[in-house]
């Protein structure tokens, strides 16, 4: 197991390196730069000086190596849009609203979705099954910025119950969290339902019934545990995946979180911030996959105990 984790960590490092090269080169391949004449009407020599100051006049691979050397020492540079602080300081500041929004969104949406999925699987073809399907389909097909807009229209514009944007006071949190929670809720409902149905149709469930086990025990002891195995592999990465979904929610509700900086960093060609955000996401994804694979192996005796029949 330890060897497995070590090997996986090496592959995380390799992935991280490849992604960093890709992003760095793609970021610079897009035409335009942070100090283009259109955006910043300064004399050419000032512009050159700025470029030199930020090291943007050097060959790309030198820039990359210098940048990565900095990353190894946890120095992600200085964001162009906010030169008074380091990228790390900015991220540390912007992290909090995103964590609250994303964390609460998943913590509310995921259990609801799982409950909905479980109920749907246990009461197949009942109203709750149809409700779950409807929620899952709508949640997955309606883009989150549409959901956000509908929420703002209903609760802020028409009913006037809640503020439409901003952060800070807890009542400002409600709408963005609700909007955001629809994504995990829909996804978890769908996955849970199909995983549970899959397990319920396994022959061993019939065997459990035949030996007289009460239905409640069958579901809570056997079916849930078996359904959890395929679910863990999707759940953790999805947790991170929803973080990217929060970009739109944050933009819609003007939440000063990572998402809004993500958007602005791309728009203003803020290379250091853009790079740092992308690398952070990459690392989080890699670790989430690693963690879910470990969890999978731990839950599944077939992997935990290897071997098997010939």
């Amino acid at each position: 197991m330890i060897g497995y984790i070590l090997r996986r960590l090496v592959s995380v490092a390799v992935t991280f390196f490849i992604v960093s090269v890709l992003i760095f080169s793609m970021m610079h391949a897009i035409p335009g730069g942070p100090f283009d004449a259109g955006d910043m009407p300064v004399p050419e020599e000032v512009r050159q000086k700025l470029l030199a100051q930020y090291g943007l006049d050097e060959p790309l691979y030198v820039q990359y190596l210098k940048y990565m050397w900095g990353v190894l020492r946890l120095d992600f540079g200085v964001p162009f849009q906010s030169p008074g602080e380091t990228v790390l300081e900015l991220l540390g500041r912007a992290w909090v609203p995103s964590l609250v929004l994303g964390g609460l969104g998943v913590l509310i949406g995921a259990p609801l979705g799982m409950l909905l999925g479980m109920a749907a699987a246990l009461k197949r073809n009942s109203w709750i099954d149809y409700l779950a399907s409807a929620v899952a389909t709508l949640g997955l097909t309606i883009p989150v910025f549409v959901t956000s807009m509908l929420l703002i229209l209903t609760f802020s514009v028409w009913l006037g119950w809640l503020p439409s944007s901003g952060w800070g006071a807890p009542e400002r949190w409600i709408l963005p969290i609700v909007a955001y929670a629809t994504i995990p809720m829909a996804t978890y409902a769908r996955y849970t339902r199909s995983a549970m149905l899959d397990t319920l149709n396994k022959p061993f469930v019939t065997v459990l019934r035949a030996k007289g086990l009460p239905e409640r025990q069958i579901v809570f002891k056997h079916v849930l545990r078996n359904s959890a195995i395929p679910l863990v592999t999707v759940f953790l990465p999805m947790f991170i995946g929803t973080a990217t979904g929060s970009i739109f929610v944050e933009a819609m509700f003007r939440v000063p979180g990572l998402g809004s900086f993500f958007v602005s960093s791309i728009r203003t060609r803020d290379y250091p911030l853009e790079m740092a955000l992308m690398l952070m996401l990459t690392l989080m994804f890699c670790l989430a996959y690693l963690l879910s694979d470990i969890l999978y192996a731990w839950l599944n005796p077939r992997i935990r105990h290897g071997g098997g029949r010939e």
Partner: protein
Amino acid sequence: MSAPAAAPALELRGIAKTYMLREGGTLRRRHRPLQAVRPTDLVLERNGILGLVGESGSGKTTTGMMALRLVNPSGGRILLEGDDITDLGVTALKPYRRRMQVVFQDSYSALDPMFTLQQIVAEPLVIHGIGDARSRAARALEWLERVGLHRSYGSRYPHELSGGQRQRVAIARALILEPAVLVADEPTSALDVSVKAQIINLLQDLQADMDLSILFISHDLSVVRSLCDRVAVMFNGRIVEEAEAETIFTGARHPYTRALLDAIPVLDPRRRRTRIFRDRDAIEAEGLTLAAGALSEPAEPSDEPALVAVAPRHRVEAVVTP
């Protein structure tokens, strides 16, 4: 190479397959070779039906797949009608693919659900560029009739058929190229009793009509008895006995063959008996020992078991003592 006219339909010379198994923990990983098939000789005579019999893990299916060049052997030669096809590449092999076809146990997954039966049966003609669209369609319908399905089935889809009917379609598709060799891997195992007999009869009829040679892979000795001319029994990756079918059923020598025969349920409730079983490990340990004098062809005494002839056309694995 000997004169092709005299060559058997299919000959396997010392064919073997070794898989490397990964085992142990992730830190100390070892590779252990698993001999799925030990070096094996097997001859499928022209116009003959050879039953390859064994249980799971015996290597019978791997042997069949190697004969078809669907699995590459680790050693040995494969001769199809006298031509060595062991090392042929994809292009060079193509004409030989026409000469040997296969039918599997699970015909449902082997038939493309999006194709009509006529398209399915005609597909080999398309692959090998034979005829035009019209003649292919006509031949496909002919073949559907020949395997006992009405022409109107040509426009149906696999899911509309019963297991027996699907197996008929699989046979039609395999035989439309008029191959010399058919490898049939448990083609009747998934079928109901009353349908099984139909498919066995169909294979017998077609074999006689087409001068076909069939390698019939099965675990079902009853079917083998009704269908095959010769039988080879595989056990733990090697052939332990090979003889004319009736010799196997009436005069088997190897303890494993006898155990297999003894396991067949007797269709007579008056002859019920309490049986004593030995498991496969015990049979493997026991083996068979024969005195050199008991052989029909001389063989060197040896501590290693080897296939020796105990009668004309009857080979059995034994340790030979002086």
